[in-house]
């Protein structure tokens, strides 16, 4: 015989064992990746009565407007940003007004601001208004040599009693689609 049946059988098992080991390692790697990239922490803004989940490892800044700004420091040359705002709005007023005000503010501070679309969307069963836009981020610092960057963004206005909560997502045009999941997870986690 070329190889004893026992040895031959063991060789086959060894081949499959290598493949099984690699599959297990990669599945563990996927789990590790998911838990590293999408691990969240509870966040509460007591004064505004808003709670939600923010991604661990993101740089957070809190204030009055926006209430929260969370930035992903490892998402390319333009760091992906999630923002949360709360603005007073009469119960009968159209939430689009809040987005219009935000549009005017941004258009005055960034270059080549352009609104792309405004539409009604459903967030956790509630109707909301979504506006997509784009602008060019230009670093005007005279000693910083950095190319202008095309930024894409989304504002979603969620109506609440006597106010509107605006959730903003900003990302570089190259990472916009890949990072959109952060935005969805964040907006779906909000409680107010």
């Amino acid at each position, binding site marked *: *015989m070329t*190889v*004893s049946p026992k040895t031959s059988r063991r060789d086959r098992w*060894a*081949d499959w*064992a290598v493949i099984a*080991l*690699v599959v297990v390692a990669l599945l563990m790697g996927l789990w590790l*990746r998911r838990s590293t990239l999408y691990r969240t922490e509870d966040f509460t803004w007591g004064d505004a009565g808003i709670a939600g989940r923010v991604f661990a490892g993101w740089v957070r800044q809190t204030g009055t407007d926006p209430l929260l700004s969370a930035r992903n420091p*490892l998402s390319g040359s333009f760091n992906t940003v999630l923002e949360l705002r709360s603005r007073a709005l009469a119960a009968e007023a159209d939430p689009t007004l809040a987005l219009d005000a935000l549009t005017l503010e941004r258009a005055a501070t960034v270059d080549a601001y352009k609104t792309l679309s405004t539409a009604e969307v459903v967030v956790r069963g509630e109707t909301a208004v979504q506006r997509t836009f784009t602008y060019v981020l230009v670093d005007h610092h005279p000693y910083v040599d950095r190319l202008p960057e095309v930024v894409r963004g989304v504002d979603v206005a969620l109506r609440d009693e006597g106010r509107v909560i605006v959730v903003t997502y900003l990302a570089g045009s190259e990472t916009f689609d890949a990072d959109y999941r952060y935005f969805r997870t964040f907006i779906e986690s909000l409680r107010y």
Partner: protein
Amino acid sequence: MDKNICCVCHQPVDADAKQLGGRTYCERHYAKVIQDRPGVWRAGLGMIVGQLAFVLLVEILVGLFKPTLAGGVLVAVGVGLALISALIWLAFFYRQDRLEPEPKGYVLSVFILGALLAQAVGIPLLDRVFEVQRWLPRSPLGGLLGAILVIGFVQEFLKYAAVRYSVFPLPEFDERVDGVIYGTASGLGYATMLNINDIIADGGVHLQAGVIRIVVTALAQASFAGLTGYFLGRAKFEDEPVWWLPGGVALAALLNGVFTTLRGELTTPALDLAGGGFNPWPGLLLATVVAAATFGVLFYLIRRANKITLSGVDAGGGVE
């Protein structure tokens, strides 16, 4: 009753033919399995010294002539440097392997297969599916685990597969040390494609830092694949348990992941008042130590295995 045939060349052998690890051998292949092939180890040593000499030469030339290359020329020079780095080992190997030559076509084929697997599977899987650059730097422990589980296992499995599913079952794979030879070839092929990808993605290479990065990648990938090859070589000719091959791939993946993490830590000094930046020299030192230690240990282990087998022959007829 089954007829006895040699497990390497599949030719009929006598009933009392030599056996090793439950496998039957003809006289010629039994003798080949336990060959030491000092030329292989000289080629390994030559590769390490040659790579260091290559770095030194490029550093001196760049220092002397201060070339101002840009665009396509810079990319072409970078790709040339990556290919030269791989050719250093092949040149040493072919020169040292004249007496008992391994088929040149097979060694080159495994080299190309390693490169193709890197380009077709390894690089897309790590960059686009696992997106390692997005999450490995986030935490030291997560980064180390990710480097082992993802980078280590993907790269080491592909280099293992380039040998296991090509030349491993063929009669030309007829010595323990062949695993190290073909593993090294596959690792260098993988490294060359990694280097070429990096150079093209960066639009060229800073010659002095780039040549070090190229050599570090080549030494590391060749060492880890040589280690997996050692496990393959023994699995083919000895009575090893089922965990032997998975253990070899896992050990190579572990070393690969630790090396990747350490290299990142050593070459990126912390920011201080004098600034931070990229210092490739500690990476080169680490890769040289890893390559020398790996090939040294493999040399010792294969010689020891051959001695044990030979002492078994002297003592009682060379069975199992």
